[in-house]
């Protein structure tokens, strides 16, 4: 069992003690009721609200949209239909699918996610989601959170088990997704993937967005890494590795053609000048590899269907003025998306003033001014631990703050900031009213 009989005996003894430990009591009846009511909620009939009679303008507009969708469908079907048929998938059933009423999958109060989010697990394979003027966000707690931009359409291709294996086919518009980083010991597990035409963008734990344009897909990785390659290699997407922060566009034939873009939409000078270096897909992503699109190692001469090992660089596009810092980036000039994509804002820098401002907001919220003339004041030293990817690991008040204030700070500051070295930020704050 282990190195020496004594150690083996000690380990065996501990195993026996653990086995003998009773399971905590569970209120089974309550649990059963909660479970069955959640199931009933998820099984409520889905319906599409009947639209009011369209105006003549709306009829013309809807005809134009339908034509665009049809044209897109023909293009995508030609590219990916054979492959999907070979995989036993229903070829582009999405267009025959009635969109799900997004209200029917809304998260109930008390469930994970923020107000207005929808339960990803309430969706079924084949469900189509269409957004109107508002985006729709779907969440599986602890696994993935993705937002379908306004005027976009997506189909659920596969629904994962245990937070792994969600696949969404993007038919129009843009998706932004945040996937919980996975333990490195699990290897490259594809927690979430977006298919756009014949191209698959697979994610292992990152914040990224995918925008389907007329004949390419634009992938913007805030942090983490995504693999981009042909559809059909479920769970082991091979092709290019895009390490965030980076932005690149890929052709819809599995990403045979790829070009790197600046975060604001231009091809970068390097991308215009040179072909990208080849690197193994599973090579560890280093910070130095930022803004690089890496091709898969050439190890499959017998698989001609795979994309080129070298990233082809397209001709430079027209110059485009860069957006000012803090301003929403301009639309991608080389990409004529049918709908303007919702480009995610750049992560905020974590500064002392940001922390003070958020904590001051919490103090105002949790210690409102009352009729009393008593003066309230408080001082803390706040220690915030930040991971290298910009996410917050922990925050601690010294002396301890009350629960409301601590929870508020957790909500406001427990998000991702600009990546950098893992660090601790220590701020002394004093508030009073």
């Amino acid at each position, binding site marked *: *069992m*282990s*190195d*020496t009989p*004594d*150690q083996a*005996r*000690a*380990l*065996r*003894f*501990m*195993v*026996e*003690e*653990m*086995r003998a*430990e*009773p*399971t*905590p009591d*569970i209120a*089974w009846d309550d*649990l*059963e009721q*909660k*479970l*069955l009511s959640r*199931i*009933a909620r*998820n*099984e409520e009939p889905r319906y599409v609200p009947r639209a009011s009679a369209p105006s003549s303008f709306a009829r013309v507009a809807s005809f134009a949209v339908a034509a665009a969708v049809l044209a897109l469908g023909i293009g995508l079907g030609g590219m990916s239909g054979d492959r999907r048929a070979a995989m036993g998938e229903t070829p582009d059933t999405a267009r025959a699918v009635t969109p799900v009423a997004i209200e029917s999958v809304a998260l109930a109060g008390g469930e994970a996610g923020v107000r207005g989010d929808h339960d990803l*697990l309430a969706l079924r394979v084949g469900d189509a989601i269409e957004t109107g003027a508002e985006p729709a966000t779907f969440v599986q*707690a*602890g*696994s993935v959170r993705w937002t379908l931009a306004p005027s976009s359409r997506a189909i659920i291709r596969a*629904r994962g*088990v*245990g*937070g*792994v294996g969600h696949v969404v086919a993007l038919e129009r518009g843009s998706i932004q997704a945040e996937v919980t*980083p*996975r*333990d490195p*010991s*699990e290897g490259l597990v594809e927690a979430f993937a977006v298919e756009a035409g014949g191209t698959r963008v697979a994610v292992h734990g990152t914040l990224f967005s995918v925008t389907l344009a007329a004949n390419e897909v634009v992938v913007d990785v805030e942090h983490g890494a995504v693999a981009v390659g042909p559809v059909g290699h479920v769970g082991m997407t091979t092709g290019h590795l895009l390490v965030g922060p980076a932005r690149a566009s890929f052709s819809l034939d599995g990403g045979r053609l790829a070009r790197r873009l600046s975060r604001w939409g231009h091809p970068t000078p390097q991308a215009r000048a040179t072909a990208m270096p080849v690197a193994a897909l599973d090579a560890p992503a280093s910070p130095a590899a930022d803004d690089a699109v890496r091709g898969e190692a050439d190890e499959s001469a017998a698989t001609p269907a795979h994309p080129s090992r070298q990233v082809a660089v397209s001709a430079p596009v027209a110059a485009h003025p860069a957006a000012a810092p803090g301003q929403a980036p301009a639309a991608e000039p080389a990409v004529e998306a049918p709908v303007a994509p919702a480009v995610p804002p750049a992560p905020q820098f974590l500064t002392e003033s940001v922390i003070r401002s958020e904590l001051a907001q919490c103090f105002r919220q949790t210690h409102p001014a009352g009729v009393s003339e008593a003066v309230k004041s408080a001082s803390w030293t706040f220690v915030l631990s930040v991971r290298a990817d910009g996410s917050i*690991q*922990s*925050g*601690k*008040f010294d002396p*301890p703050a*009350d*629960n409301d*204030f*601590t*929870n508020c700070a*957790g909500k406001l*500051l*427990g998000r991702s900031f600009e990546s950098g070295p893992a660090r601790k930020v220590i701020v002394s704050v004093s508030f009073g009213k």
Partner: protein
Amino acid sequence: MSAVVGELEGGSRSAPEAVRLSAVTGVGELEELVRRSQRGDRVAFAELFRRHRSDVARLVFRMLGPSADAEDVVQEVFLQVHKSLGEFRGQAKFTTWLHRVTVNVVLMVRRAARSRPVFSGEPLADHEPDRRLLPDEDAARRQRLAAFRKLLDRLPEKKRTVFVLHELEGMAPADISEIVDAPVLTVRTRLFYARRELAEMMREEPTLSQLAEELCGSSEPQGSPAEGRLVGTEAT
């Protein structure tokens, strides 16, 4: 599919007992329950839940430890089972599939817990001394268990999962290989290294380092379970 259906309420039974008790109900009855649940029969699903809830709770507890909110996780497991039941084709035993879903949900919960920022205004529970008055032996046992759980937590996730499934749940490597989707040989290898690493860590853990010596002098130490069963040495 072998007859693995029965369940006793109360999660304190050991894994070998679980195997012995599992043949209470016929195979056909379970298959019928699964089929009816797949067709949307809520009564059948509720029956499936009642039969397997203790097994699931026990595995959740053993994988997550006592600090976790086991009820929520058990509920999440059965919600996941309900959603995925349509994809269960009966190629594996239902219990194996159920364990697989449970393990995946637990791993997801552990991942989420790791990535979630911890905002604390008070010292973490880990550092809180247990001030309750306990008989010496019980207190010592609790200390040992807490220390051992911490060591178990330090194992890499894959080795830890295999160790819990085999050593604590009493599953055979072949069944575990289906649950974790890895070859049997890989399961055995992970088990071997999990044991070795745990034994090494125990040597350096003050609460547990004396245990080997204490056990050396007495084949039946105080506070040990009534019968010292041999634990899964066949796996390596």
